[in-house]
């Protein structure tokens, strides 16, 4: 078989990989802010939940999390009378997002804490409510600092999507495995897939750079 005939199924898989990456990165970003700010909360319950989430998802393997959500959760749901069976796409996106969100939450926390306390004091002296202080003063200064690390996490996430092929989701890695089983042409298939992942990572990095530049307008130049 010609190597060009691999391209059609691989492209189908690539599209699934792109969707998984985009959805889980966005959802993971939301988790990152939610739990990163939660960890800084003075409310012990919010703080406790956030710390537990971050530690559990950073401290366990993504593969096991994925299997747990896809295979274990439905059985546990059955036991308590809930239907917790998810389609593979949903299970994949959720597992990836929870995983990247846990790392992202630490980035959010660090960047918020890195905003000088004098800024916090100035905002207090001007009588901002704590919510407006966060949205108007702290986050606009913290978000530009988070962006380079978020860029790295997004690329990491793209590469992690390959794991979802193990819950029979037809992503690029899954298609590659199928073709290899059929043709035994490991070298060609995996070389192709290697370059395709690399190409996607380049595009993703460029997108994150654009986003970084966009939010960089909030940063004080020369600081």
């Amino acid at each position: 078989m010609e190597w060009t005939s691999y391209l059609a199924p691989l492209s189908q898989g690539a599209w699934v990989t792109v969707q998984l990456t985009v959805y889980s990165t966005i959802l993971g970003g939301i988790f990152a802010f939610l739990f990163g700010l939660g960890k800084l909360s003075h409310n012990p319950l919010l703080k406790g939940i956030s710390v537990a989430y971050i530690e559990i998802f950073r401290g366990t393997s993504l593969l096991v999390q994925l299997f747990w959500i896809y295979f274990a959760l439905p059985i546990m749901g059955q036991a308590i009378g809930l239907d917790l069976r998810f389609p593979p796409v949903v299970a994949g996106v959720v597992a990836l997002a929870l995983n990247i969100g846990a790392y992202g939450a630490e980035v959010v926390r660090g960047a918020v804490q890195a905003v000088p306390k004098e800024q916090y004091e100035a905002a207090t002296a001007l009588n901002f409510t704590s919510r407006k202080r966060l949205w108007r003063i702290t986050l606009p200064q913290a978000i530009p600092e988070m962006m380079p690390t978020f860029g790295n996490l997004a690329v990491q996430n793209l590469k992690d999507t390959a794991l979802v092929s193990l819950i029979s989701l037809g992503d690029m890695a899954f298609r590659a495995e199928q073709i290899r089983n059929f043709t035994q042409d490991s070298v060609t298939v995996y070389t192709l897939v290697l370059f395709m992942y690399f190409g996607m990572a380049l595009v993703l990095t460029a997108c994150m750079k654009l986003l970084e530049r966009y939010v960089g307008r909030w940063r004080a130049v020369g600081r």
Partner: protein
Amino acid sequence: MNDATKTRDPIIKFDKVVKRFGDHVVLDELDFEVQRGEKVTIIGPSGSGKSTVLRILMTLEEINDGVVYVGGQPLWHQWRGDRLIPASEQHLRQMRSQLGMVFQQFNLFPHMTVLRNLTEAPVQVLGVKKAEARQRGLELLEMVGLADQADKYPHQLSGGQQQRVGIARALAMRPKVMLFDEPTSALDPELVGEVLNVIRTLADEHDLTMLLVTHEMHFARQVSDRICFFDQGRIKEQGKPEDIFTAPKEERTKAFLKAVLDPDD
């Protein structure tokens, strides 16, 4: 001794206030009053609790004991029946609206233009209309001599200019009391004058109550109604500037003034 023109209705009153940092006692049962419209300068060696007085008033530092009153209301407490209980955030916000603070390090918001630094809090906190806040912001910039810098960012200004924006930003909230925490200490010597001039104008033309912590003794002498010499968390000596600077009674005051006024001896 008491100035007859001033009513005994202090806008600020510290009643046996204690502030500790760990084992270190910063304010030791401090009693201190400022009358409405009065300009008071606090001087004293570093670590004597000068800045702490301002930071307590701005609610940036809690107190350990005693009561602070602003405009007759307890600042860090609120009344429940006839008992004082710790203040809620709501009470603190209400009290804070009477005070404005100028920081040693300016603390401007680096991600906002100069004008936006002045309009953000009035719009977001006081609910002033944007156009109105902008108008008032430009007037204040005019007053501090920076009308042409409205669209620049803080890092594009000199330290002296930044501090003048800091003063304008605090004034934009229309406080009754202005707190100046070593406003010129972080400035290069040649930039000190422009900031002092703005503060002097404020002192002369407005009915603001002003509380200053500074090492600029000549300036303190010119603008203050009263000088308070702080030492070890208490007021060691206070009085009219002429009296304090020309005829201090306490040995500690004499030694301090000698050290700061003739540092070469």
